[in-house]
């Protein structure tokens, strides 16, 4: 199954190389990885999505912990968390089809961030399901370019909860 790891690391040069290098030499596959600094400029937060069974995850977790720059690892997969991904999509849009595309943008609560003579560039955030659905809806129009940030995630403010609440929040956003 897919696991979402929230990894706090020292914001030092080379820390990304250390983490990425560990994944490759121990044979762990990264599904996605997003990294940026936290409210504390000395600390960065990585959200890493990996696929594997519990034993695989345990070993990955322990190996990551051996890196001196890794401060804290939380496997938040089974906890209640909020996750988001931001995607930019440039889609072919001649005058005749623009209205149709803008309708889709409305339905998915996406935003048009750039308008070209023959294209529209759309920003959409959400979880994997929503983004995939949106991508599929746009495909018939002709996707020229697509870029995803990778998922970022955060535990909810309360402990008890279930994945259902995640999904509910998703629909509202």
């Amino acid at each position, binding site marked *: 199954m897919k696991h979402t790891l929230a990894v706090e690391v020292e914001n030092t040069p*080379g820390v990304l190389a250390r983490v990425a290098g560990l994944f490759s030499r121990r044979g762990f596959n990264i599904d996605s990885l997003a990294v940026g600094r936290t409210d504390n400029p000395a600390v960065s937060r990585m959200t890493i999505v990996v696929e594997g069974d519990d034993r695989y995850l*345990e070993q990955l977790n*322990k*190996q990551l912990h051996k890196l001196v720059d890794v*401060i*804290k690892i939380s496997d938040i997969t089974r906890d209640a968390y909020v996750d988001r991904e931001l995607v930019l999509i440039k889609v072919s849009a001649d005058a005749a089809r623009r209205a149709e595309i803008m309708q889709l943008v409305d339905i998915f609560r996406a935003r048009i961030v750039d308008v070209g003579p023959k294209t529209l560039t759309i920003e959409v955030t959400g979880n994997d399901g929503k983004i995939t659905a949106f991508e599929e809806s746009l495909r018939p129009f002709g996707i020229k370019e697509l870029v995803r940030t990778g998922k970022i995630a955060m535990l909810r403010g309360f402990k008890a909860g279930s994945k259902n609440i995640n999904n509910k929040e998703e629909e509202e956003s």
Partner: protein
Amino acid sequence: MGAVKLSGAEILLKSIEAEEVDTIFGYPGGMALPIYDALYDSGIRHILGRHEQGVAHAADGYARATGKPGVCLATSGPGATNLVTGIANAFMDSVPMVAITGQVTRSSLGRDSFQEADITGITMPIVKHSYLVKNPDELAQIVKEAFYIATTGRPGPVLIDVPSDISLSRIEYRQPGEISLPGYKPAPDVEPKQIEEAAGAIACSKRPLIYAGGGVVISGAHNELLKLAEMLAAPVTCTLMGLGGFPGTHPLFLGMLGMHGTKFANFAVCECDLLIAVGARFDNRVTGKLETFAPKAKVIHIDIDPAEIGKNIRVDIPIVGDVKKVLGQLLAVLKPNLEDAWRQKIQAWKKEYPLKYCDSGNIKPQYVIQEIYNLTEGNARITTEVGQHQMWTAQYYTFNKPRSFITSGGLGTMGFGLPAAIGVQVGCPDEVVFDIAGDGSIQMNIQELCTAVNYELPINVAILNNGYLGLVRQWQEMFYNRRYSHSELINPDFVKLAEAYGAVGIRVTKKEEVVPALKRAIKSKKPVMIDFIVDREDNVLPIVPPGESLDKMLG
């Protein structure tokens, strides 16, 4: 105010001295010159090697023999890359080492400057941690952290890459602060629940076996291990790295296990109902086929590194912590459990399947090793290269004391033994040091003989010369239809070579000359290289074929 200004290089050396380091091993070069200039006035003893790989192995040998961190120093580019094998070797065998490399100036970094190599990048998978110094103000703190990381928890090598303009810059020296590494927890607390569970499993066990690794030696837990074994009357088998961690002459000792282990050790693994792994990591040379390893046993695994637990095999009772501390806590709650039937079975195996070799008219390598043991009364420090001679040493030299056997286990580095012997002799000046070598391995760092002569280090090199890369030849004989592809060696005249370096060279071609030659070497107080012309096609036996179960031993 009015603090003294020091150069970066001076601060580097001052910080190293603050870690109670009195000896370093190194080789100068352009980008390390500011450090070498400061070394000229420093109280630190510097041993000049002849190749950076030798320098790294010498620091490694020094660290293994003394338990203190080994420090090596090299210049940028090729100097740094030549350290790489030595760093990897220290990493695989958990040796505390601090490697310092010169680097091109900060402004030249990333421009493919002369003798520039991204050594922090190159060594990333083989260091415990590394630093590229970007600011001279950080230097003192970095050195303090580096030694702390190298020597605590599971020890390992730490690299500090110092651009030459950092070494040259003059700044006010400030004492380093407290170490703050929120991501580094070297010594986890032992969970009392795990100790209880282990004690429970031990109490129920009818056929316990202790499998001890290098962690026993590193943690200094040999006395605790002895107590544990005697309290339970449990047989003890050691890994290559664990040899010396338990007295080789003890009746409970089974010798080494695994690929070239004794039959009785491997039978004990197959038959035991409880395997107590102490500071060992279930290497594939130990386990053979994983699926059939210790098939009847519950497994207790004691290790300081949580990542070793469950890495290769399923563990029933993990105990994470320093081996010495864990064994101490375990001993406090254990009750004697002397199971006689198991001990008798083991003794019967020992009688039935002893280690043996057939005497021929020629010199047997095993015999030479036994005589080194006899003549030094087991008190020598032994290093080895890698190959048949190494395995025979593990089998036929009876190691009784920790840190008496210094060998490249994990990485299996040919060329380790000679420079390591130099490091050992520097660390233990009054002891007899032997490098037991093969004619192939010895040529990989033979230039270090000059270092031994240079510093009047009376090491003894015993070459077991069979004119082959012996272990390669053995595998070709056993697994490749005797197709001896590129394993036969044309060798130099080792006696002349020794003499050319200024050492004593002795050639031994007859069995009766073995003991006199060894006596002469031990007495000489000079570096000596003895070329023992041994039986050419002897094999290391028993052998578990690669990937087979431990009970499928041949020989």
